């Protein structure tokens, strides 16, 4: 896995996203890259803004690519407040504009754009793993 630890992460979203998107594991196909970048942004933003109560802490970001199955794995790890983003209920996308609440779409977009997303709490860390088949 190609990975890097960012510490502190306050205001570092762009740098973390750029690091992940520059990984040689990432596909070149623009449609795939769009979906992956969106998911990466939403997941990274979640950690940067909500993981640490005082806003100061680390995030380890990594990628790996299985050359046989062409499954790209993106892993985010932090030592912040235990939080499983997958437990949050999906927004009701059938409501009218009046009824829709502003926000709450980030993790939902990750779920829809990636092929799988899993969370575990391990050794005091939040671990979020997102996978995408990058066959063009």
């Amino acid at each position, binding site marked *: 896995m190609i990975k890097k630890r960012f510490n502190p992460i306050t205001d570092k979203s762009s740098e973390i996203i750029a690091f992940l998107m520059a990984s040689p594991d990432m596909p070149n196909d623009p449609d795939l890259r769009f979906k992956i970048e*969106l998911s990466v*942004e939403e997941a990274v933003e979640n950690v940067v803004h909500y993981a640490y109560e005082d806003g100061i802490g680390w995030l380890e970001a990594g990628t790996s690519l299985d050359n046989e199955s062409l499954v790209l794995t993106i892993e985010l790890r932090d030592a912040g407040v235990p939080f499983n983003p997958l437990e949050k209920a999906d927004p009701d*996308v*059938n409501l009218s504009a009046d009824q829709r609440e*502003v926000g709450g*779409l*980030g993790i939902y*977009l990750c779920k*829809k*754009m990636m092929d799988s997303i899993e969370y575990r709490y391990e050794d005091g860390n939040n671990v979020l793993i997102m996978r995408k088949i990058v066959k063009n």
Partner: protein
Amino acid sequence: MKVTINKQNEKTLVTLEGRVDSTNAEQFQQDIAPLMEGDGSDIDIDCTGMTYTSSQGLRVFLLLQKSVMAHQGTMVMRNMDSRVKEVFDITGFSNIITIL
């Protein structure tokens, strides 16, 4: 995101160019604030040059749509990039915002 607003009588023409993400969504919201003043005009947004939006951008588009409806105006978005359109489709925003 570059925002150009051109008010012509009852019609307001807007062009969006570039990307809206977590780094510039706040600025984007400020840039389109004139569209939320509530003069009830018809807003026509050309999205030809808009290449990306994250949930932070969607948030601003929803605020704008709510404002337009509250002021009995109308809003359409045109020429949306297929990838951006998919984001609007997945989140149900295609049902609440008119996309031509």
